[in-house]
């Protein structure tokens, strides 16, 4: 088992090398401007003078979406071990999971009714 993880690790290392390799090749190949200017490093804002910093406050619905993602993913994660043993354990596992999912879907109905995920 560990050997497979080591293989995956080696795979990731090779992909890292590729990314760094491209950046390295570009470092060697790319041109350098003779004259640098402040305007060149201004943030792109369609030709306008950048107005303030880019970091701004976002709407709370982003947070709500992330929250629901975590909750639903937790649900899915619990379903993975269930999926593996479903055949083996039979009807009892099936009923347990169905009730698990149904209770969660109640929450989904509530979200829908309250329009908490309305994205306008």
């Amino acid at each position, binding site marked *: 088992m560990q050997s497979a993880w080591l293989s995956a690790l080696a795979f990731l290392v090779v992909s890292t090398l590729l990314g760094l390799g491209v950046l390295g090749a570009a470092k060697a190949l790319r*041109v350098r*401007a003779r004259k640098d200017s402040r305007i060149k490093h201004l943030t*792109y804002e369609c030709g306008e003078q950048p107005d303030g910093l880019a970091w701004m406050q976002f709407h709370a619905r982003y947070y709500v979406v992330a929250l629901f993602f975590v909750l639903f993913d937790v649900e899915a994660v619990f379903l993975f071990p269930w999926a593996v043993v479903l055949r083996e354990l039979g009807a009892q596992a099936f009923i347990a999971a169905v009730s698990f999912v149904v209770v969660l879907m109640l929450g989904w109905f509530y979200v829908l009714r309250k329009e908490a995920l309305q994205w306008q």
Partner: protein
Amino acid sequence: MAMSEDPPKGKRLPLYDESALPYEHPLYKTLLSVPGLSVAVAPLDMILQWGMTNALWIFPMATSCCGIELMAAAASRVDLDRMGTIVRATPRQADVMVVAGTITVKMAPRVKRLWDQMPEPKWCIAMGSCAISGDFYRDLYSVIPGIDTVLPVDVYIPGCPPNPEGLMHGLMRLQEKVKLAREGGLPTREENPALLDLTRPSVMRFKDPARDPSVTLAQEEAALHATAQDSSDERPVDGPAVTFAPAEARAPDVDGEFEAILAGEFGVTELPKDAPPIVEAARHVELARRLRAAGYRQLVLVAATHYPEKTGAKAQAERFEVTYGLRTIGARSRVALWRVCLAPGESVDTLVGVYAGADWQEREQFDLLGVTFAGHPDLRRLMLSGDWQGHPLRKDYPADKACAPWR
């Protein structure tokens, strides 16, 4: 002497100077410094140039009708993608800026800034007469005489507008130019004073060796601060609050009411046939208030005319006539027009207290003519940029004189 012969005789000017390239390849320098490796430079350069010129991504600076042809060039019939050209929306990923359309003085700092934000190597194509020379707007106060007074232009595509194939041809000429420049084979051009006279813009081109470097600096400064000085943005007006009278069912519809008011209450009996009556500057706000009460609820016009006095003892700078127009709102709309004459140095009282709509209209007159409105809450430039010198609609405005670094 003939003004134009092909080829003309004269002093040979080098068009292209290797050392004048705005960028350098550090790799080449390294390779050339190592004794054995210098042979690799030529083939490497061939490959790099091949890549560089065969993937020209466009940044579209499309401001008017040429932009339509630019779009057509990317569509099925011509298909710029055939030569690997795609359009990128950000200058950071573009190689060629295609200036397609008239560039106004207000736009120029933005174009310059976007140009500066493109990474090297970069090129500029001026597409169509407006971008090349300003076309017949070139002597207008608000248009720059050709984009090459702001940036170095590599290829000029003639036409008004050029057709989509023209743009493709321009891109191919650009490839040709890069190749020729690499080989040192760019055609040199003969200087011909008569031709130069004909096409010389009122400002030096960017690439002109005789160009004053301070102009470029001033342009860069302007590009850096363009918005900071602009006054066209909206801001809350903190002038006198205007409350509208409740809407009447129908505007009073009495013929000759305006004339009656003028004659009865303001003593204006002289009614010229071809011009609005003249009202005393001191009493015209009072007149407006009276007319508003009489049902003229909309200010439709604040216009001004400049009459410079050229001769005589009163050779002052300006004399203005400001014309005001009101309208009733209703089924049978009626109009009231009057003039206010201003002596040199005099200002007229603002109507902002009576009509909120007078705010911007009076600002426009101030901006373009320099009429001052006493009591105006926010008398700034409205249309022109904040650093503009002078008032372009005055009769004595020097049309050919530089009034901003762009001209």
